[in-house]
């Protein structure tokens, strides 16, 4: 019933800017105000989309990218989760590993790409590249999650004489899980950003990013725009799903915050 509360003027305001741009775009390309090869008309983009849809290259490349991102994400986030838990549980390992971890983390991710090319692991290079980016947010969030488990809850465990293992599974893991989920959401969105980068920096493996990169060489702007819309859409869908999952699994934490 929320829809009823939204005012018509608000909807019109929201539509104003996109509609203006669309109309301007349409008119500009219709009357050749802008060079057509750099500013393809909406119908050009649609035609281009139809073309790549028909010859199968769109879904072929999208498929490669999605599978690649999932591989990198799974590898990176699993490693990140394990590192985060370990550093959170042991003060000694925290002191031992954190400095080098932070040092490596300072390197802007694209800088690793040439190195990975040089090591020439093929597809593995791209997956590793994504996994590196996917790893950091999960490490940081899981670590913070474990570190901020309330001492009060641990005392309850002591009262019931929980073993270390039981403390971990009954208190630390569930209590830090919402933070881990936040890390996973960030991680997936970084992974998706990096898959495009990986496909541009480390070409010849296919994928939607490489498709866009190749279309640039042939000045097929319409297909570049198709690519941009596609990656934005997939990115949005991934983020949306992760947010829903986050809500679902950390309902107790979110409602706890709201009630405060």
């Amino acid at each position, binding site marked *: 019933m929320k829809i009823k509360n939204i005012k018509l003027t608000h909807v019109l305001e929201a539509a104003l800017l996109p509609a203006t741009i669309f109309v301007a775009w349409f008119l500009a390309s219709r009357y050749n105000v802008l060079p057509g090869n750099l500013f393809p008309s909406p119908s050009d983009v649609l035609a281009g989309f139809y073309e790549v849809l028909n010859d199968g290259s769109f879904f072929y490349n999208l498929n490669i990218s999605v599978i690649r991102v999932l591989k990198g994400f799974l590898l990176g986030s699993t490693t990140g989760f394990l590192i985060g838990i370990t550093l959170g549980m042991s003060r000694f390992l925290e002191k031992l590993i954190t400095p080098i971890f932070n040092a490596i983390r300072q390197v802007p991710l694209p800088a690793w790409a040439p190195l990975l090319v040089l090591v020439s692991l093929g597809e593995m290079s791209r997956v590793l590249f994504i996994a590196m980016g996917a790893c950091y947010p999960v490490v940081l969030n899981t670590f913070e999650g474990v570190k901020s488990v309330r001492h009060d809850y641990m*005392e*309850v465990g*002591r*009262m019931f*004489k929980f073993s270390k293992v039981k403390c971990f599974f009954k208190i630390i893991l569930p209590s830090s*899980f919402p933070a881990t989920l936040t890390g996973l959401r960030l991680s997936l969105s970084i992974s998706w950003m990096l898959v495009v980068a990986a496909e541009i920096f480390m070409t010849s493996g296919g994928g939607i990013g490489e498709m866009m990169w190749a279309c640039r060489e042939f000045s097929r702007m319409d297909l570049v725009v198709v690519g941009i819309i596609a990656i934005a859409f997939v990115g949005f869908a991934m983020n949306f799903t992760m947010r829903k999952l986050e809500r679902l699994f950390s*309902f*107790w934490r979110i*409602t*706890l915050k709201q009630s405060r």
Partner: protein
Amino acid sequence: MKSTGTLAVKNVSKKFKSQEGEIHVLDDINLSVKSGEFITIVGLSGCGKTTLLRLIVGLESDYAGDILLDGRKLNGPSLDRGIVFQDHRLFPWLTVEKNVGLGIVGKTDAEKKEIVQNHIELVGLKGFEKSYPYQLSGGMSQRAAIARSLVNNPKILLLDEPLGALDALTRMYMHKELERIWKKESITMIMVTHDVDEAVYLSDKIVVMSARPGKLQKIIPVPLSRPRDRASIDFAQMKEKVLEEFMLHTEQNFNYSI
């Protein structure tokens, strides 16, 4: 030998180390608690009453003196002593049922289920088994916390201002409930509070503590019959007697006032 819940605190002192040096929290505390007694410890904030409770339950160690349960020295937390914390400390990610069942060990699933069900009924939370802590009111949360602390049939239950955060009416209702649970379980209860009314309503003995360093100021027996009537003159006089210890009593005597 099975524990019966007789507790003896002998010459206990406790110091905390901080950056400014040592803080003397408890000084030469002596207290004996008989099996099945209800004791309340009353004192101002910072008099060390919570520390004393944490020593008895075994969450703090490194103290001078002896704390004996059934004649044996304590060694860390144990399942024969339960505690209800001031903040209920239910795990927000578990349902009431799961929270209550948290501490049960060495039981089959069927036995576990029965114990949980019995204790949920004992504290009057039937119908809320599947609720999460955020769906409960403050009083209900403390009921669940009490149930959780009783599942291993401890002989002593320690209560650290469990009703402090509740509104006055709910608190009075919880007094009745606590008394009922105490009788039904025939268990020794030691409760920390700063509510004199609560102390007089519930206790067999009231232990008054003074602050910095925490010392036992006086032990006041409460010989009133149960259930107690808050409106009775005996009850009011008892309260006056305790308040006197804090210099808070009214000057004229109740006997003349009618």
